[in-house]
């Protein structure tokens, strides 16, 4: 725990337990996807939930609690990344590849879970982030923009590029299977 722990009253705990705690498992899935390490993912979720508990009074009731938790999780992730690398990565070479996609192939008819997760893992991480938040978590563009601290226009362009690249990657396993046959 890096932050100073503030006391939480019984009523706040009850609300937190009912509204935020049930999202822990889903947060773990997303954390695990990005961290690729069970221990780090557990630490990340625990730090996220601890910070959320201490600032639960700032959560606006009636809004999307999972999106709020994801914002905290992303904030902790980016702080950790900054502490690991002296300067942030401002230009990903894979991004340039994504920008020069010649055409978007149609989605293969038969897709296994391994195909789709494998393809997702092969596209640049910052494009994975928006796809996971939009298509898996069903966050709105506004929520994604707030979570990742980027403009809505960037969310939309990353989604466009990410999906195009994902489709290209999805073509690969089908081709491979055909060759094997």
């Amino acid at each position, binding site marked *: 725990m890096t932050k100073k*722990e503030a*006391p*939480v009253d019984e009523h*706040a*705990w009850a609300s*937190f*337990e009912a509204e935020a*705690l049930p999202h*822990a*498992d889903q947060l*773990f*899935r997303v954390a*695990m*996807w990005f961290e690729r390490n*069970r221990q780090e993912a*557990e630490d990340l*979720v*625990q730090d996220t*939930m*601890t910070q959320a*508990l*201490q600032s639960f009074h700032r959560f606006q*009731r*009636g*809004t*999307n*609690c*999972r999106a709020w938790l994801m914002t905290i999780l992303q904030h902790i992730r980016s702080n950790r990344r900054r502490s690991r690398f002296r300067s942030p990565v401002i230009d990903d070479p894979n991004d340039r590849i994504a920008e020069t996609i010649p055409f978007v192939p*149609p*989605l293969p008819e038969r*897709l296994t*879970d391994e195909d*789709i*997760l494998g393809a*997702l893992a092969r596209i640049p991480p910052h494009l994975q982030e928006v*796809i*996971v938040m*939009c*298509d*898996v978590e*069903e*966050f*709105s*563009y*506004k*929520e994604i923009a707030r979570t990742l601290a980027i403009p809505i226009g960037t969310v*939309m362009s990353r*989604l466009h590029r990410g*999906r195009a690249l*994902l*489709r290209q990657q999805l073509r690969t396993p089908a081709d491979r299977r055909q060759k094997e046959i």
Partner: protein
Amino acid sequence: MQCREVRDLFDSYLAQELLTETNHEILRHLSGCPTCRADFAERRALREALQRAFARARDLEPRSEFSAELGVKLRDIAQAPQRPGLFSHWLALAATLVVGLGLAGTWWWANRLIRDRDLAAVAVGDHRNCALHFTLAEKPISLAEAAQHYDAAYRILEEVPPAEILTSSGTARVLERHSCVYAGRRFAHVVLQYHEKVVSLLVTKGEDGASTSLPLDAALHGDVRRIDDMSVLSFRSARHSIFLTGDVDRAELSSLAEVLAGPLTRRLSSSQTHSSPPAFATAYPRLTTVMSNDSQNGINLTFPGPFWRRASNALGAKCPEAARRLPRPIAAPAG
């Protein structure tokens, strides 16, 4: 709508964030545009495949004890002993004084006004987050379902107000009827289109059996407030608080209230006893999608669940005006 506009809205449509009218426009466009229809089908297929893969991936599953352990750790943090500071002592003294002075009769009125203002702010929040932005955490349910589980009187809102309301300053039309929750409070919510703006009629139970809003006469004589850039007018029936709110001017909101208030408060006040909700509407509360066959064109179409729920509610209530508002099936041109 142009193809580009429609494609930009696909994600919001799939996440059920759009107003009913926009959903209709998208469906209308899709019915006549095979390219967008194919693109939409692919977008949905990709989203469903990703969600399925994420939910089933064993590598991403947390340990079975993870949630329980996390809960215990967080509870320990929550229950860490509190050391009262100087501020806390002042707070305790102030609280004692308030309790002492609380015997005065004015306290009751002050409290009532505060509750009224708070509740009106919650109603405005619901209007903004549900009717305008569709960003509620909990998805709305049908009025029939809400009547069954929370308050039988909510069923009245299936019929009152009617689909078209004539007022002295224009016509209001019902766009949507449902029940939703904002800031922990459940409302029966009727979304109206009035003077080209979206206006919400919200009905909620009065706290502790008492109402928190003004008597009808007082409300209809100019008590329109502005909260968070919205006009709000509140009045009450025997057991409910009723709010009208939207980005319209005070006079327009008052003229709408004049027409709505009488019939609505009478029906709500006489709603002490109730029967079970219509069987048709309750038969499908958990239905998520339904296939609609267009035998003439020989195609199968899938409507998203919310449309079907809204349609079933309207039909269940035997409301012909609402039934006319159902989305038409998407019919692809033959061949």
